[in-house]
């Protein structure tokens, strides 16, 4: 089992979701986050005073998948999320020891 985490541009979420669905992925968990990176750093003025907006809105997607699926899923996400412009985001993969479906108690691949 692996956990794939993708931090992407919010307006790409729909495309990514559709692509993953098409690739047979049945579940994922999404969080609104704020990203700091190369893209960041525009300056605004508000009633005369300046301020730096370092953080830009992003969406983080968490997906637990079977080891065999990891590369395909990562590729799918990258294909759907890329615009080629700075700030497209990152994908990373970590190892999962155990996965349980709460409703049934099923474990591992069954639980995805």
């Amino acid at each position, binding site marked *: 089992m692996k956990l794939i985490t993708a931090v992407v541009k919010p307006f790409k979420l729909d495309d990514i979701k559709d692509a993953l669905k098409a690739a047979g992925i049945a579940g994922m968990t999404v969080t609104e986050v704020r990203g700091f990176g190369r893209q960041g750093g525009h300056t605004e003025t508000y*009633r005369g*005073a*300046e301020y730096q907006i370092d953080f830009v809105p992003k969406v983080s997607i968490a997906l637990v998948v079977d080891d065999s699926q990891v590369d395909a899923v990562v590729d799918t996400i990258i294909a759907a999320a890329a615009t080629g412009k700075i700030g497209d985001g990152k994908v990373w993969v970590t190892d999962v020891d155990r996965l349980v479906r709460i409703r049934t108690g099923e474990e591992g691949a069954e639980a995805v």
Partner: protein
Amino acid sequence: MRYKRAFRISSGLGGVIAVLAITPSSVFAQDGPSTQDYLNNIWVFIAGVLVFFMQAGFALVEAGLTRAKNVVNIFAKNMADAIVGITAWFACGYAFAFGGGGRWIGDSAFFLADQDLATIPEGGLSIATTFFFQAVFAATAVTIASGAMAERTKFSAYLIFSMVMCAFIYPVVVHWTWGGGFIAEKVNFGDALSYSDFAGSGIVHMTGGIAALMGAMALGPRIGKYGADGKPRAIPGHNIPFAIVGVFILWVGWFGFNPGSELLADEFVITVAVNTMLAAVAGGLFCAITIWWKSGKPDLAMIGNGVLAGLVAITAPCGAVDAWAAFVIGGIAGVLVVFAVFFFDKIKIDDPVGAISVHGVCGAWGVLSIGLFAKYDDAFLLREDAGLFYGDNGSQLLTQFAMIVVIAVWVAATTGVLFYVIKKTIGLRVSAEEEVEGLDVIEHGLAGYAGDMAHV
């Protein structure tokens, strides 16, 4: 030529407001009040209701331009201004302002005791009407400072300030002017016969603005307002829709504030309204141009300030000037407010909503503008063509200036002492930790926006 309007002075005995003018349409004697009398009173009452509505407007503007973690505190302070302010006005504010008493301060009508509230004098207003209309003005005057002191003032300290302001500091200013006290009598230079401040650019708004200035200075800037380099950093407001709805509500309320100050239902009610409308749009327009040019974007929060700046400025001259002059006065206020906001930011006086710039600076500008643009014989002016541009030699301008100085000194001195005493006793400012965490939960035990998640 215009009718000479009522010279509003307290009669000195029992607080009855005598109106000496000849009112149109009350030409034949009759037993009770005439329909015109009823119309006068009903209209001024309706205007008062519009002014009262401004409380919601102030709360929304202030809340919108500050952070979510202090939003309950903002609304609590505005609610307190209405509750404590009107109670104080009832107890002694009205008495000090209009309860007879000569030059310095009124001395009767505490708690409205023994007042005949209902009777309408011919061509005038009943005590009920005057009390109502003046009470909502008092609540306005005190609310102004709330914005400048936002996000860091102890709630109990603010309550004391609000009470003293409505019970004493503001009523004295009113007594000196609309109450017939020493400014009404004495402040005049050369050809000028009297000061003029139709609806209170100086008496209400500048009074509030000076209190706001003293409060902001006594408090010091919010944590995080100035960077390590000493440069001001913006702390954007959490809800711009609130702020702009608030501006619209205030604008609506101002159509009671200024036209209602005619204190009669006559034709000038509506010329005043037209001037008010034109000054507001000019304030917004020229503010937008200025901020667009200075910062590259049409900052909506600032434009809201610009509209209010135009409204504050026209509050004094709205009865005395032509439509084009109203537009010019409002437009100048719209430019002025931008520079004032930058200025106070720079000298490290942190005013989260711009109250000092809007009410203080543009209030003073409004009072002065009479000395430049006054053409018609307005309340207190007692003459036509009092403006420099209509042939006056500057006497009126000087008189207006003197009035500003007197009010500013009084308010600065009294609020200065007040804030000093509060600071040395119960303390004026919350702890740094409380400021960072937000005042809502710690002072009021209540979050403004309880997420559904945290508790069921």
